[in-house]
């Protein structure tokens, strides 16, 4: 039986519908599968990316930790470096200081050894009774020994035992005389600049027969009538009497010769006479000033000398110039030194205990060489201070330019009292005011 056209049309339509439906389904399935596949792939990629990201983040965390640890280590190292550098700097500084200290010590040791060597040599020379050479030996090491005694800033110019100095200017040369010590009975040193002093020797090689050896002190020299006259204190042999004698020389360096048969002055009833000093007034008249008595009874005297300077003017008598009346003097005035300038008379003197750091220098003003005198100040004009202890035994003189100086002895502060040395100091003296003033340094 043949299909009718309608049926064939329906069949074709049905087939077409089916084919279309199948095609739609296939397309839907295909796209669905494709979407699923793409989704799965994307998910897998996402998972991989997340895994990678997690790994990276882990690496980041690990690296951050490593960085933190390393940074901490670096900071610790840098702190250690800073600390070490600081320690190194401090150590190097300490080392440099130690080296400097060691160098300074080395210089000091060399100075000490040089000074000690000179003193030892001098000691040996004295033991061999060669006092002049002993004086030259210590004089040769004066520089190093001056440094050891504190340097020249205090006015120290001769760092050896040179008590009761007396300085005169002859021509262009200064001569200083002192109590018996290394050089002998009366020591002499000289200088052309007041800074460098050299030993000359013993001004008084021999003593008169009535004198006791090794007891000569407090010299003073003046040129009177063309002759150099030396006054000095001396003990009378066989007694305890302390007296003043006189010797003469044609040269300031001596040798001075004492032809006396007896002391020039010896106030036995007053406890003896010592510390002589000559004074030549503006009219050329010469005087001798000195001290009598001991602690509590001391007194300073003046008396005119005859034109030779070796004796007092006949008929003259000692005149009292000064007695101890100030607390700082502690009952003792001694070592007088009278000068005149500008119409004024100044009597310099020492007070208190010579063997202590209380010793000091005072000044009185006088109306003339025979007084009367009065203290210019209730206080000493020169006393213990930095680098100087117990200054005294002064001698005032003018230099070649007319400037006044005061020469004095003093102990080094940590070595006060005999047998330590009383060294020689020089300082400028100003006489323009009502009270003379002494410079505080050399």
């Amino acid at each position, binding site marked *: 039986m043949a299909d009718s056209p309608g049926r064939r049309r329906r069949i074709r339509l049905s087939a077409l519908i*089916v084919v279309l*439906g199948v095609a*739609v389904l296939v397309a*839907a*399935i295909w*796209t*669905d599968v494709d*979407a*699923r596949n*793409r*989704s799965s792939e*994307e*998910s897998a*990629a*996402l998972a991989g*990316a*997340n895994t*990678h*990201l997690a790994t*990276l983040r882990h690496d*980041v965390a690990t*690296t*951050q930790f*490593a*960085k933190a640890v*390393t*940074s901490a280590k*670096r900071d610790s*190292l*840098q702190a*250690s*470096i800073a600390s070490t*550098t600081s320690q*190194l700097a401090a*150590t190097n500084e*300490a*080392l440099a200081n*130690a*080296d400097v200290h*060691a160098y300074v*010590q*080395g210089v000091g*040791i060399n100075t*000490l*050894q040089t000074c*000690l060597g000179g*003193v*030892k040599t001098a*000691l040996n020379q*004295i033991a061999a009774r060669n006092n002049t050479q*002993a004086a030259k030996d210590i004089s040769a090491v004066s520089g190093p020994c001056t440094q*050891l005694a504190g340097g020249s800033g205090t006015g120290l110019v001769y760092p050896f*035992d040179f008590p009761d100095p007396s300085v005169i200017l002859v021509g262009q040369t200064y001569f200083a005389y002192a109590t*018996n*010590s*290394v050089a002998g009975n009366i020591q002499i040193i000289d200088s052309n600049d007041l800074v460098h002093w050299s030993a000359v020797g013993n001004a008084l090689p021999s003593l008169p027969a009535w004198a006791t050896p090794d*007891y000569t002190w407090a010299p003073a020299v003046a040129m009177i009538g063309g002759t150099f006259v030396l006054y000095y204190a001396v003990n009378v042999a066989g007694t305890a009497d302390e007296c003043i004698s006189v010797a003469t020389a044609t040269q300031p360096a001596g040798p001075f010769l004492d032809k006396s048969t007896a002391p020039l002055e010896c106030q036995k009833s007053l406890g003896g006479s010592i510390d002589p000093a000559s004074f030549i007034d503006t009219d050329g008249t010469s005087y001798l000033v000195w001290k009598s008595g001991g602690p509590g009874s001391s007194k300073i005297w003046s008396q005119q000398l005859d034109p030779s300077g070796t004796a007092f003017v006949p008929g003259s008598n000692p005149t009292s110039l000064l007695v101890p009346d100030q607390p700082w003097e502690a009952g003792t005035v001694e070592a007088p030194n009278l000068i005149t300038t500008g119409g004024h008379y100044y009597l310099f003197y020492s007070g208190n205990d010579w063997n202590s750091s209380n010793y000091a220098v005072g000044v009185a003003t006088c109306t003339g060489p025979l007084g009367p005198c009065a203290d210019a100040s209730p206080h000493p004009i020169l006393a213990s201070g930095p680098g100087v202890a117990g200054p005294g035994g002064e001698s005032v003189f003018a230099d070649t330019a007319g400037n006044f100086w005061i020469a004095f002895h003093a102990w080094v502060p940590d070595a006060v009292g005999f*047998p*330590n*040395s009383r060294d020689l100091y020089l300082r400028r003296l100003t006489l323009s005011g009502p009270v003379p003033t002494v410079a505080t340094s050399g």
Partner: protein
Amino acid sequence: MTDVLEADRRPFPTEPRARRPASRRTRWILWIAAGALFAAALGYLIPDQVQARDHYGQAHTALGVARQQTQTVTRQLDELRRDLNILKTQVGSDSTALSQDSSQLLGAQTALAAAQAHVTQQKSLITSLQTCLVGVERALNELAIGKLSNAIAALNSVSPSCTAAEASSG
């Protein structure tokens, strides 16, 4: 009507049924079933595909974010590694510097100890020399005025210092 009449003329059980065209009802049922099946298939496939595409889109977006983060983290990691390398280099140089400084410090401390020992030794020598000098000078002053026994006593009092000074001076 013709088909129905023809079917009625055939003997009933012996006529092959497969050859018989499906009834209109059956065909409709088949069409409806097929349509339902088609609709069901589409009803499943379309949402599924939408879901898959959504999932894809989310995954894609997340992947983009992840890749961006990866780039960021990678850059961060690179910077960190660079910093770490710099730090390690610094640590290396600092360690060397510290070692050198420590060595110098040790040397300086050793030198300082030696210098201080030298200073102490010289200080002792200076003390001995000063003491000796004081005694010898006292002896000199005593002997200068004829006090021999006093001079000897002064020398004896500083004899140990003088001996020590001479020994130290070599």
